[in-house]
């Protein structure tokens, strides 16, 4: 596009501008990715030097029931998070896509948890979900039901944390959906109404198809974000009870910096890396074959 303007800078100048970023890319991303692969074939406690043990860490992982449970937890957390965030994000966006005075206040209110630390979010939800004094259980008892032990229950802990994470982040996806909705030509919706389409029909036949590229964009980022659950798990359950809410990102931390099994933790990190990589490739594939052919 700006081919004609090569003379305003020499060949070296762009590298002056981009050097810090390239250094960061190598030192904090590419090099660690390669070294983590090497470390995953070693036994190491951060002291001394890594001891090469070939595939032993991976063998141990595959034989470990705890690890298989953690992989299942990770997938379950991602499913709840992706489906929950997309459904609620879209519902909120449709609800709030209206020009009424005061709407900006509510929009900001729903966005507020996005900018709040996961630690503070975890603390206040722990307090509200507490077994005896928590406001949620007191309410459930008041209407005559038996409240569960949200975070102490083996079956419920993971889903509870995932739902809190959906609560925290749904405002973010709402805003992106809102941007997509506001790009839809209002005339199309108006003429559908004139033709006698009801709200349901125009939502599923017009709004959703026209939002296709936004939906895929949000699918991509919710999948990526669904792995970022370390902080909330740390603040709410520490992976418990008995690994019921432990996920791959939390387990990397636990093995590397609590148990000092750095080689083993690197193998877990690599399993995580491969899963994220496969998801990303899958996404690009879906995008290429569905969205772009329709546009």
């Amino acid at each position, binding site marked *: 596009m*700006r*081919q004609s303007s*090569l003379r*305003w*800078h020499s060949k070296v*100048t*762009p*590298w002056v*501008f*981009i050097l810090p*970023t390239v*250094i*960061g*890319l190598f030192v*904090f991303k*590419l090099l*660690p*990715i390669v070294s983590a692969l090497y*470390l995953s074939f070693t036994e190491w406690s*951060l002291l001394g030097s890594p001891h090469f043990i070939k595939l032993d860490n991976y063998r141990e992982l595959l034989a470990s029931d705890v690890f298989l449970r953690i992989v299942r937890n990770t997938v379950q957390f991602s499913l709840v998070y992706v489906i929950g965030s997309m459904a609620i994000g879209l519902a*909120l966006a449709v*609800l*709030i896509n*209206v020009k009424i005075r*005061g709407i*900006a206040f*509510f929009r*900001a*209110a729903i*966005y507020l*948890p996005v900018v*709040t*630390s996961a*630690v*503070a979010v975890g*603390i*206040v939800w722990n*307090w509200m979900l507490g077994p*005896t*004094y928590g*406001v949620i259980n*007191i309410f459930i008892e008041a209407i005559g039901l038996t409240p569960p032990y949200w975070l102490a229950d083996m079956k419920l802990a993971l889903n509870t944390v995932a739902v809190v994470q959906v609560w925290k982040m749904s405002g973010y996806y709402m*805003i992106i959906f*809102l*941007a*997509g909705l506001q790009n839809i030509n209002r005339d199309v919706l108006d003429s559908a109404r004139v033709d006698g389409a009801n709200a349901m029909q125009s939502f599923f036949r017009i709004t959703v198809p026209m939002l296709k590229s936004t939906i895929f*964009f*949000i699918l991509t*980022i919710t999948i*990526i974000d669904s792995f970022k659950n*370390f*902080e909330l798990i*740390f603040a709410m359950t520490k992976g418990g009870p008995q690994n019921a809410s432990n996920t*791959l*990102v939390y387990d990397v*931390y636990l093995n590397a*910096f609590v148990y000092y099994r750095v080689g083993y933790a*690197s193998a877990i*990190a690599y399993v*995580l890396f491969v899963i994220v990589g496969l998801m990303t490739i899958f996404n690009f594939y879906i995008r290429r074959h569905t969205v772009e052919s329709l546009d």
Partner: protein
Amino acid sequence: MKQKTADRYRLLFIALVSAIYIFPFLWMVSNSFMSDKHIFSVPPKFIGDLLFTPQMFDNYKNVITQYNFGRYTFNSIWVFTLAAVGQVVVCSLAGFALSVMHFRGRNLIFSLLVITLMIPVQVTIIPEYYLFLKLGWLDTYLPLIIPSFLAGAFGTFMLKEFFSQVPRALFDAGIIDGVNAYQMFLRIYLPQSSSPSATLFIIAFMNNWNDLLRPMLYISSRKLYTVTVALSQFQGQYEVRWNLLLAGSVLSVLPLIIVFAFSQRYIIESTMSSGIKG
């Protein structure tokens, strides 16, 4: 008239939904004004019993004097201001090069930035920790500042998109005046970017402020804690003193809520535009 009633019902419904998002914050604030005696009362009291009494700020005083929250807030503010300024500078340099200049490897660098944006920090944290250990940077702020300086892929992406929308006429005017690359950046492109740069500064500041993993791993001296780490440690020690814990949470969240209140329009707009580009 009919439209107006419909709007009114809709607004009421929106208000009810928003309550789900606001209630935990109100609950946090109101319980942080509760005395030890009343914090566990059943049925729960909705208004803190210390409010508007002479002991109103006792929990807060406790947290600030005994647990040093003032110091941790100050630590977070200066460290993360520095980190965010660095990120804005580095990202605008890179964003300018990637959007306006031509050079070999440009697409490769950009693709690598976007791809690495998707990798969770846990994949790279172990070698990163080892690097800072070997450099002797543990228990200093350098590991909290330097990665934020150098590895701001999100900000680079954001400013690249912005710079590529700067009107071509400005670029041509620069060329006619015979400016060099540095003048082109400093005099023509940078002055245009005050609004996205400010937004990036705030987003970077907030992300760093809320981060737990890095400060938890790299900072061990109590006096160097960031607010978020302090709160998390505080949680471990005072699990049963909920009124104090909630007062600490309010203190850790308050600075960001104030920043957000003044900048929410820009933050939400930048979220919207990054969405459209997807």
